[in-house]
């Protein structure tokens, strides 16, 4: 019996050493000249991923991408003080980061426009924001306190002269980030949501976009963080995002990266 125990013990110890080594090794083997850590808002994933690949290929600087909601990312950065670039889905977060002394350089890399997203076929015949106040409709929107796409709601309502009270009556879903809103329409738990146009494009198979008459524009900012250990590389990434090739990638992905800031 003791022999069995001893064997098990050795096997386990050997196995764990092997595993740990493999973990460490696979992390070690890709250590090129330099690398940067980019905190990227989940909604910006597609274009930034392509940009990162292109950037890596052309400049040889490895880009590590970490995704989450913009506000959660900001919280993480505040706590960990690690990261080179922060791509956030609204200028407000960038401002917040600036106020906290985290911003070294900032640049607008693309524009977001909010749109109404409804189920394909537009069964409720929604053509404007006012239409959404029809009784019985289920609306989803971002949290006005924590989601960039929620913060613009009050302004949108007033610009389009929509009754805020009636609007609120129809709101059944309030989310902390924008990505859940698209899924809600896809799954049919709501009738319509207010999301960014770029997000909406990802759902074009199952949903329809209804433009908003009187609209606002939100800017997507990319920030070089003061916590960056390699500000040069970080700045180069920022430049890449603003560059011609960067803008092309954005546009191809359906993101609005027009020249004006």
């Amino acid at each position, binding site marked *: 019996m003791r022999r069995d125990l001893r064997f098990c013990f050795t096997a386990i110890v050997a196995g764990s050493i092997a595993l740990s080594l*493999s*973990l460490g090794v696979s992390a070690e083997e890709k250590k090129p000249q330099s690398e940067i850590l980019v905190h990227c808002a989940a*909604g910006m*994933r597609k274009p930034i991923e392509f940009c990162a690949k292109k950037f890596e290929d052309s400049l040889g600087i490895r880009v*590590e991408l970490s995704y989450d909601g913009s506000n959660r990312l900001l919280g993480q950065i505040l*706590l960990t003080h690690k990261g080179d670039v922060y791509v956030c889905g609204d200028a407000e977060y960038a401002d917040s980061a600036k106020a906290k002394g985290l911003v070294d350089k900032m640049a607008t890399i693309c524009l977001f426009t909010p749109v109404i997203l409804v189920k394909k076929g537009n069964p409720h015949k929604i053509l404007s924001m006012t239409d959404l106040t029809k009784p019985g409709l289920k609306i989803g929107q971002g949290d006005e306190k924590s989601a960039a796409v929620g913060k613009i709601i009050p302004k949108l309502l007033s610009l389009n002269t929509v009754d805020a009270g009636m609007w609120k009556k129809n709101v059944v879903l309030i989310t902390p980030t924008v*990505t859940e809103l698209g899924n809600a329409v896809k799954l049919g738990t709501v009738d319509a949501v207010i999301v960014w146009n770029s997000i909406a494009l990802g759902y074009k198979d199952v949903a329809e976009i209804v433009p908003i008459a009187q609209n606002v524009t939100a800017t997507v900012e990319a920030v070089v963080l003061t916590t960056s250990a390699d500000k040069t590389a970080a700045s180069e990434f920022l430049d890449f995002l603003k560059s011609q090739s960067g803008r092309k990638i954005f546009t191809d992905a359906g993101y609005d990266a027009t020249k004006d800031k």
Partner: protein
Amino acid sequence: MSKKAFPILFSIPLAILTGAIALIIVADISYVHKSDIVSTLLSRDIITSMILTLETSAITTLISVIIAIPSAYALSRFKFPGAIVLDTLIDLLIVVPVLVVGVSILVFFRMGFLLESSPFLPAALAGKVIQWLADVFIYQRAGIVLAQFFCSVPFAVRVIKSTFDDMSPRTEHVAQTLGCSRMQAFFRVSLPLARQGIFAGAVLAWARAFGLFGPISIVAGAVRQKTEVLSTSIFLEISIGQLERGIALSLLMVAIASLILLALRIGSGRTLFGGNVQV
């Protein structure tokens, strides 16, 4: 109540429970398209993510069990004032939302930075050590294991402690009279007798680590190919509206977990078709 009524009555809640689980899985399966599954599962990212998930959950389970066994034994056997407090502390890890565990870990590492600039020398030294640890864990693979560990170990401790609680100390006493020191009595008698409980604790710890998401993304980040585990992959897919791929990955996790759990159960002596095989 007729003779058959009792087993039938008790089988009903079981049927409802397992039926609901099965229905959800079936719904998931019918939601995905075959093409999604193939493309998702064969992508290099996902394979890396899967291997990383298996590796980290295995290491976490190992570390959890190694720490849980003596801790559970101490809690069970040693009578000291404040044992209740320690017990409660461990339970707190289960009660508190896993997200809070993750954030708290980050807050702790942040303290290192603050302590470093303290004029009080021991504090500054402690700060330096914590800073160094922060570099080891944050946004690194080790961070995955760290986050998984804190969420898994309390389960292992709970199960193993109750195993030792149920074990009469008399057998250890006899071992001592037969020539064992307390340590020897532990390794020769207590540990082998606790085999089943330790195994159950390990399975629970592994299951927890395998399926964990929140604190991992906070401590280790959701960095593609580096600290991306399967649960993170699912999150990333869903976050861009790719529900089908997300569900496909979930089914992948379900399949892997089923295989491993079944294998572990059979390995511990229970046959596939009911009944216990004496090991």
